């Protein structure tokens, strides 16, 4: 009986797969470390984006609300951490105070944005959220006068790393006889966080709330007639997604030690949304794949194109940075053309698309 109605639940996978995945996850930072700590950082960012994308997945994939300003919540989380754990104000609160606080603040901003706008649908909601994302970024950019709060475009530096007692995540150290670099430590922290958000995603999907989101996505009028308070339930999705954005922002600030408004551009929102859409909206493995690919591939290109050009042509012809965006764009177009439901879609989304094609 139990679980009879669940579709695509990770728990149905054989244990072999879980073991294999654990082994891979454990080995990644060490293998990446062989190529230098830069690669470990890239792996870290891949997982941070998995976290962000899965947070956005709740809003876009489950509740079907197109949010183009997701990065605003990421920014709120990051700045909360930066302001409360840096010499900027001379406040140094521990991470376990700031991360929940950042999540809470981001959640509040989510509700603040959502409450008046969630009557809007589709394109209109997208425009409003896009505007909100920009407003937050511009505020961060300009809140340095008359009172210097965010330090403007220079950003905030020397942010405290995440620290548990004497155990600092930014310095290398030895645990259980294994020497870990700072980024490698963060890697494991991020994996734990990512697993957490995966569990939340899976469990929400197969719950009363998850069904309501799906119902709203399918037919909002019918959902209302079934007694679902659609505004509140949509707001809930928005707030949940925002909270995860806030947590991710906090970890980002701690990991980088530096935040500036530049990191929270519209491009960032679009990248995160692309991860969700490209991977397969509403499908957790798909979203993870999307996040890893869209973080990893550009880096591989960045590091691969230059030596390749030198080997083939003997000199640099195309700037790797511009080529990177070109390939990125082309990949997006190709995926949308040939796999419109995403690289690894849920059976659900495939059906929905089949329906619109009819």
């Amino acid at each position, binding site marked *: 009986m139990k679980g009879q109605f669940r579709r695509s639940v990770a728990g149905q996978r054989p244990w072999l797969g879980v073991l294999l995945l654990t082994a891979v996850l454990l080995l990644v930072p060490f293998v990446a470390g062989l190529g230098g700590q830069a690669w470990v950082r890239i792996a870290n960012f891949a997982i941070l984006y998995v976290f962000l994308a899965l947070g956005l997945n709740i809003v876009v994939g489950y509740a079907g609300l197109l949010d183009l300003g997701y990065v605003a919540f990421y920014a709120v989380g990051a700045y909360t951490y930066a302001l409360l754990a840096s010499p900027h104000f001379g406040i140094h609160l521990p991470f376990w105070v700031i991360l929940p606080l950042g999540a809470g603040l981001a959640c509040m901003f989510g509700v603040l944005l959502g409450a008046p706008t969630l009557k809007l649908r589709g394109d209109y909601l997208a425009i409003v959220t896009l505007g909100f994302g920009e407003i937050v970024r511009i505020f961060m950019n300009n809140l340095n006068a008359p009172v210097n709060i965010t330090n403007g475009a220079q950003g905030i530096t020397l942010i405290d790393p995440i620290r548990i007692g004497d155990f600092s995540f930014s310095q290398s150290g030895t645990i259980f006889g294994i020497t870990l670099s700072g980024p490698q430590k963060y890697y494991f922290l991020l994996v734990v966080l990512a697993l957490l958000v995966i569990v939340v995603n899976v469990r929400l999907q197969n719950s009363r709330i998850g*069904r309501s989101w799906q*119902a709203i996505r399918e037919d909002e009028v019918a959902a209302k007639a*079934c007694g*679902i308070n659609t505004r509140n339930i949509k707001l809930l999705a928005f707030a949940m997604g925002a909270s995860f954005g806030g947590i991710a922002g906090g970890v980002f600030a701690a990991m980088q030690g530096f935040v500036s408004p530049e990191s929270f551009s519209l491009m960032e929102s679009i990248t995160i949304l692309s991860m969700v859409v490209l991977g397969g909206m509403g499908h957790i493995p798909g979203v993870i794949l999307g996040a890893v690919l869209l973080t990893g591939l550009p880096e591989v290109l960045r590091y691969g194109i230059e030596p390749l050009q030198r080997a083939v042509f003997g000199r640099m012809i195309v700037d790797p940075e511009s080529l990177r965006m070109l390939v990125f764009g082309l990949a997006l177009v190709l995926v949308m053309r040939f796999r419109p439901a995403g690289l690894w879609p849920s059976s659900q989304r495939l059906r929905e698309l089949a329906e619109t094609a009819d």
Partner: protein
Amino acid sequence: MSEQPLLLEAHEVAKHFGGVKALQDVSLTIRRGEIYGLIGPNGAGKTTFFNCLTGLYKNESGHFVFDGVRLEADAPHKAAAVGIARTFQNIRLFGNMTAIENVMVGRHLRTRAGVLGAITRNAATRAEEAAITRRAEELLHYVGIHERAHDYAKHLSYGDQRRLEIARALATEPKLLALDEPAAGMNGTETEALRVLVEGICRDGVTVLLIEHDVKLVMGLCRRVAVFDYGEKICEDVPAVVQKDPRVIEAYLGGSVA
């Protein structure tokens, strides 16, 4: 019948769309435990009446009293919460959800689990989830489509979709079930099965408000019938009387007496 208390009172409900008077001061009363029919030509305002009642539209004037309490039905979910469930003329199921999931959505209103419950999956949430599933299965049995429980709603046959919509509405534990043309597009056998189902629902204590074009079905099922024409209630009585009313005949046949 008349000793039964009133369940729904509509007091001079009016709704305009621009210059079109979709409903003009419609008043009617429905008693607990009856099957009340609403008939009339296309565009007479029957569905508009439903939409005002269930909070999809806001009526310009007039009000409803439901179960002794004045309805402030400015939102459909509130109407559902006080015990008015409905189906739609053009079936509105959650097509990409299975039949049983559709009914489970209907349980939303009468269950509590929130985000924390969903994430922690504590004992109370698991018990509630099991109860939701059990009730949904019972309801699918009740309307007779339990074999299709795990099929996607959009893959069900037309008649089964109508039944599923009724099951979903019943899942909200309504006092009043408002059915908007449930027999539309059904053949004779299906209509007869529907008649049996609706009678059963009424017998089990749910009052039924029925919009229907199938005159035979309405006359067979309903204790009382109201006839709408151009947004006005032109007649309200037992089926046998309504059938012979000259105003009704005129509304349907345009003056030429059959």
